[in-house]
């Protein structure tokens, strides 16, 4: 009953945990950048592209949004090699994250694009801007301003969801925690520490994104 928490026993493993933390941060940053790129392309294709392309994007988005991330990860890591596509743990983890965030950000960005008044597009075109210029300078600019908070929270959700990549032995923070637990059997202590590390990471990411938003969208 009177169990004493012993965090001191985690000390010898600080190095392992730190490496895991760094992996998680890199994984999040890379998949955020690549995922938003995928999302921007997907959203543009859905709203301005040909119908057949829009349909494909819609199927992609719904498939990802309506299945668990862990199943997507297992499909990529265990399933694709059957088709001759063998990926390392790390590559599979990054790929799954990008695909996942790409689908969510497609949907978020699309909502932002649809909120841009049609008149603004027409105004841009009538100022002799090309379709690309209108998309980049008028539509996407306004869309991102509007959906930035939603996109920010999705990034944090995906970051927290990344804990699952430990299940294919990608060496993230959760993997490190599992490793330490298997060595010193202080399961609760190490998972509590890892959970708090994620919590701090989530809070830091939130403030960082907020600050970044203020810089990017300084006007207005």
């Amino acid at each position, binding site marked *: 009953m009177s169990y004493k928490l012993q965090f001191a026993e985690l000390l010898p493993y600080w190095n392992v945990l730190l490496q895991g933390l760094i992996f998680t941060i890199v994984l999040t940053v890379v998949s955020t950048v690549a995922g938003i790129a995928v999302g921007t392309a997907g959203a543009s294709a859905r709203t301005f592209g040909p119908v057949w392309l829009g349909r494909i994007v819609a199927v992609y988005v719904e498939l990802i949004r309506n299945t668990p991330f862990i199943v997507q990860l297992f499909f990529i890591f265990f399933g694709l090699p059957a*088709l001759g596509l063998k990926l390392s743990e790390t590559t599979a983890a990054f790929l799954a994250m990008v695909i996942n965030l790409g689908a969510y950000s497609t949907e978020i960005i699309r909502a932002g694009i649809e909120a841009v008044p049609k008149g603004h597009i027409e105004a841009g075109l009538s100022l002799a801007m090309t379709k690309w210029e209108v998309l980049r300078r008028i539509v996407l600019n306004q869309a991102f301003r509007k959906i930035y908070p939603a996109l920010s929270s999705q990034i944090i959700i995906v970051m927290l969801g990344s*804990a699952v990549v430990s299940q294919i032995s990608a060496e993230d923070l959760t993997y490190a925690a599992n490793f330490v637990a298997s060595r010193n059997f202080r399961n609760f202590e190490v998972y509590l520490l890892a959970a708090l590390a994620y919590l701090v990471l989530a809070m830091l990411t939130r403030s960082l994104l907020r600050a970044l938003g203020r810089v990017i969208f300084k006007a207005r």
Partner: protein
Amino acid sequence: MLQFSFWDILSNLLIATQWTIVLSLIAFVCGGIVGLALLFMRTSRIPALEWFTKVYIEFFQGTPLLMQLFLFFFGIALFGFEVSPWTAATLALTFWTSAFLTEVWRGCVESIPKGQWEASSSLALSYIEQMRYVILPQASRIAVAPTVGFSVQVIKGTALASIIGFVELTKAGTMLNNATFRPFLVYSLVALIYFCLCFPLSWWAKKIEGRLNVAR
């Protein structure tokens, strides 16, 4: 060696799907009840209660669900209780769900005009009576769409219970994969079953939301 036909794989997955559904329902219902209690605390304007719910929500929204599962699984054991994956998964998913639902519902409560609070205050209604008769009946109309939408997250969340050894759809998929060595087929089917569970709910949530926007 035991041979698995396509139908063997599918029927085993479908049997396990029942547990995904049961776990989802329990987590959603219990999470909803806890969430409602938290909602009352969060909007009570009693500083200690608000502070507690804020910390609670911050923790369950700011840490991975997987960590929460581990913490419940190993944490309760510290007190000398035998913890089954079933108990740990139910508890973790309930608390996790409640944190998100509380935030979703708080947004709905806060979208009700201040005048509704003032008018009901002036009629001598207590806080609980205001919530019960004036605020929640209005807020619940707006809350349906995001709540149904969140149920999809709950179903997907139950997949993580597989990691602590709870045999539901994802765990069954892993076990079948180990037995059959047909990962592409097995995980395709697993994904497809999740899709069949989640997509109708997503679609319904979107439909309700659209209808509500038209009605305004």
